[in-house]
C-alpha cells in the first residue's frame, strides 16, 4: 500500500494485484466459507432470527435518533462514578487528550486491547513517536503490529496470513521456536504478553457499546486480553465513537448474542464485560482512574444525512465483509480504510470526504448480500447507490462520465440512432474478435479480463415484430 498515491488509484492498483493472486484468494475464500458454516448453525438455533434482527435494529434506532439525550446521560452517569469523560471533535483532539493522560502519569508502557477507533486516529504512530512502548494484546492485532501493517479485517485482523508466515515472523521478531502449530504459536504470544500486562502503566481499550442508562462501556472479546488490559494497569482509557451508545443495560441481552452470531458465528463471545468507572471504594482491584474519550470525527456529518444516518447503527460485527464478493476478491488492505468492506465503503466517504472515497461506492456488485446479512438491518447496498447519486449530483463524476451520459441520452431518445448504434456494436464485436484481449483492441481495458458472448442473431425488436 503506497501512501502517496490517491485513494482511487491505490484501490485499483491493489485490487488488480490481489485479484491476480489465486492462491491468497482461495485461502481467503476457504476461511470465509468456514465462518459461514459456523454462523448458519448458530443462527438456526434461534427461535426467530429475522424478528430478532428487527428488535436489535430497534435498539440502535432509538439510540441514534435520541443521541443527544443518551450521550449526555451516558457521560453524566460515568462521571458520577468517578470516571473522566473527554469530548473530542476530531482525531487531533482525541490524540492530545490521550497523550496528556499518559504524560500526566509519567507512564512508560501502554498495553492495548483491540480498538478500531485508535486505528482511525492513528494513535500508535503518535505514541511511538513520543517514545512510549505500545503493545497490541489481541493476537491478530499483535501479529499485524509486528508486521507493521494495518488490520486486514476489522474483526479478524490477521486472517490473510498463513501459519508458516506467522512462524517466520515470530522467529524473526520474538526469537521464538520454529513451529507451524497454531496452538504453540498462540502460547508464544501468551507468554510475551503476560509480562506486558503486569508491567504496563496504562491500558487502552475500545468499547463495543456505551450504556446510557447506567454509564457503562461494554467490551466483547474472546481472548481475555481486554479484561486484563482493563483490570491490571492503574489507568484505563477507553476510546469510542459517539455512535456506540445504546439506551439500556438490558438491550445488551439482545445485542451481544446478535453481535456474536453475526460476527464470528459463536452463540456468545467468551467475555462480555461492562465497565462503569474506576475501582470503587468497596472494591479490591481495578484501575484507579478511568477515562472515556468520546470521538465525533465527522460522525455528526453522517448523522445529519437523513438517509445514511442508518449506517451509524452499525455494531461492527464484520458480517458484511464476510459475505461480500468484492471483499473476497480484493481483500482487506485494498480498501485503504480503517473499516473495510461494505460498511467501510458506505461510511468512509462521509468520514473522510466524498471526493477521494467515492470510488468505494462502485466497489460493489449491488448483490445485496451485505444488507441481507446485517444483524441490525442496515440498508447497506442502497446506501452505496445513494453515495453514487450524491457524487454525481455534486458533479464529481468526472468529465468522461458526463460525456458518456450526454451521449447515452442522445442515443436513447432517437430510435434510428439506437438501431444504428446496435448495428455498429455488433459489427465492432465481429471485427475486433481476432484481436480480442490484445493491446490493440480498442476495448482492451475492459476486455482484458472478460469475454464477451456473441450477440443474439435476432434483436428483441426484430423478435417482437416477427411475433406479431
Amino acid at each position, binding site marked *: 500500500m503506497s501512501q502517496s498515491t490517491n485513494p482511487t488509484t491505490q484501490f485499483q492498483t491493489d485490487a488488480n494485484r490481489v485479484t491476480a493472486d489465486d492462491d491468497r484468494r482461495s485461502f481467503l475464500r476457504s*476461511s470465509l466459507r468456514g*465462518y459461514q458454516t459456523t454462523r448458519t448453525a448458530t443462527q438456526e*438455533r*434461534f*427461535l*426467530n432470527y*429475522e*424478528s*430478532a*434482527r*428487527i*428488535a*436489535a435494529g*430497534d435498539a440502535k434506532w432509538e439510540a441514534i435518533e435520541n*443521541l*443527544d439525550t443518551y*450521550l*449526555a446521560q451516558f*457521560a453524566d452517569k460515568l462521571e458520577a462514578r468517578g470516571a473522566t469523560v*473527554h*469530548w473530542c471533535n476530531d482525531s487531533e*483532539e482525541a490524540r492530545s487528550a490521550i497523550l496528556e493522560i499518559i504524560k500526566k502519569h509519567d507512564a512508560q508502557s501502554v498495553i492495548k486491547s483491540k480498538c478500531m477507533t485508535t486505528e482511525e486516529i492513528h494513535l500508535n504512530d503518535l505514541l511511538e513517536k513520543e517514545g512510549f512502548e505500545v503493545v497490541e*494484546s*489481541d493476537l*491478530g492485532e499483535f501479529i499485524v503490529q509486528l508486521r507493521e501493517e494495518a488490520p486486514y479485517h476489522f474483526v*479478524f485482523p*490477521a*486472517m490473510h496470513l498463513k501459519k508458516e508466515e506467522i512462524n517466520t515472523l515470530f522467529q524473526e521478531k520474538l526469537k521464538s521456536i520454529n513451529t507451524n502449530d497454531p496452538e504453540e504459536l*498462540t502460547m508464544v504470544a*501468551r507468554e510475551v504478553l503476560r509480562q506486558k500486562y*503486569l508491567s504496563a502503566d496504562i491500558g487502552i481499550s475500545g468499547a463495543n457499546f456505551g450504556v446510557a442508562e447506567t454509564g*457503562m462501556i461494554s467490551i466483547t472479546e*474472546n*481472548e*481475555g*486480553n481486554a*479484561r486484563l488490559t482493563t*483490570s*491490571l494497569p492503574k489507568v484505563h482509557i477507553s476510546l469510542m465513537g459517539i455512535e456506540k451508545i445504546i439506551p439500556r443495560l*438490558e438491550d445488551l*441481552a*439482545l445485542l*451481544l448474542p446478535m453481535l456474536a452470531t453475526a460476527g464470528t458465528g459463536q452463540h*456468545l463471545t*467468551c467475555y*462480555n464485560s461492562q*465497565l*462503569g468507572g474506576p475501582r470503587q471504594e*468497596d*472494591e*479490591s*482491584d*481495578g484501575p484507579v482512574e478511568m477515562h472515556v474519550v468520546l470521538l465525533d470525527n465527522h460522525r455528526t*456529518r453522517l*448523522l445529519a444525512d*437523513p*438517509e445514511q*444516518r442508518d449506517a451509524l447503527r452499525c455494531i461492527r460485527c464484520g458480517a458484511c465483509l464476510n459475505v461480500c464478493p468484492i471483499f473476497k476478491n480484493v481483500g482487506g488492505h485494498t480498501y485503504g480504510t480503517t473499516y473495510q468492506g461494505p460498511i467501510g465503503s458506505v461510511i468512509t466517504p462521509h468520514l473522510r470526504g466524498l471526493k477521494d472515497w467515492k470510488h468505494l461506492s462502485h466497489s460493489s456488485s449491488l448483490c445485496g448480500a451485505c444488507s441481507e446479512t446485517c444483524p441490525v*438491518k442496515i*440498508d447497506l447496498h442502497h446506501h452505496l447507490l445513494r453515495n453514487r447519486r450524491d457524487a454525481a449530483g455534486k458533479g464529481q463524476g468526472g468529465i468522461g462520465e458526463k460525456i458518456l451520459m450526454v451521449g447515452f441520452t442522445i442515443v436513447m431518445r432517437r430510435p434510428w440512432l439506437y438501431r444504428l448504434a446496435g448495428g455498429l456494436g455488433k459489427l465492432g464485436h465481429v471485427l475486433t474478435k481476432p484481436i480480442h484481449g490484445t493491446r490493440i483492441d480498442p476495448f482492451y481495458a475492459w476486455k482484458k479480463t472478460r469475454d464477451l458472448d456473441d450477440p443474439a442473431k435476432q434483436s428483441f425488436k426484430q423478435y417482437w415484430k416477427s411475433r406479431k
Partner: protein
Amino acid sequence: MSRDAILGRVREALSVKTDAHVREVAKKSSHSLPVLANGPDGRTQAVKEFLPFVGDSLEDHIAAFKVLSEKLQTEFIVVPTIEEARQTLERLRQQHQWKRIGVHDHELVQSCVDQLQVEFLNTSSNYDARELEKCDVGVSGCDALIAQTASALVTNHSAGGRALSVLPPHHVVVADASQMVTTMADGFALIREKHDEKWPSFISFITGPSRTADIERVLVLGAHGPKKLTIIMIAA
C-alpha cells in the same frame, strides 16, 4: 467546550427527521414475522421469544447448559451437596497438582475450599497481581448462571475483583442451582435488584475458557485468560 459543540451538532443533525423509507426498511421483512412492540419492553421480550429456546424448568436449563458447555469446552459439574463440591475440588487439586489458589471472601467458595491443603491468596482486599499470576487456579462465586448462553455472570463483588477470574490459568466457579436463570436479561435484572443504583464497576458474562482462532481459524484455548473453566453447581 467540546461537549456543547458536539451535542450541539448532534441536535442540529437530528432536527431533520430520518427518511421515512429508510426507517421502514429496517422494520420490514420479506417474511411475515412476529414483530414485538418497539421500545425497551419489546426488546427484553425479544430475548425470550426470538433467541434460542431453553425451556422453563430447572431440568431444562441444566440440560441446555450442559449441551452448550460441551461445545464451549467448559467443564460443567453438577453435584448434589456442598460436601460433594468439596470432594470435587479436592479431586481437581490432585489432578492438576494445585499448589497455590486464589480465593475471595465468599461463603460458598470458602466452605468449598477450606479443607484443601494448599497455599491461599485472598483477593477480597488489596493484593499483589504478580502473586495472583503465580496461582494455579482462581476459585470464585458468581451472581447467576445463564441457561440460554451457558455463561457465568460475575461482578467484582461476586468474583473477588476483576482479575481473579481471568489471570490464573484455570478458573473454577462454584454456584448454587437456585442461581440458574433463563436469559442474560434475567441476569441483568438480578444485578439491578441486588445493587440498585450502586452498580459494581465491573460486570462480566464468562462463556467458556479464553479462546482465539486468529491463526488460520484454528481454535486454541487459553489465548490470554484461563485455559480451563470449571463450573461446579450444587443442585440438591
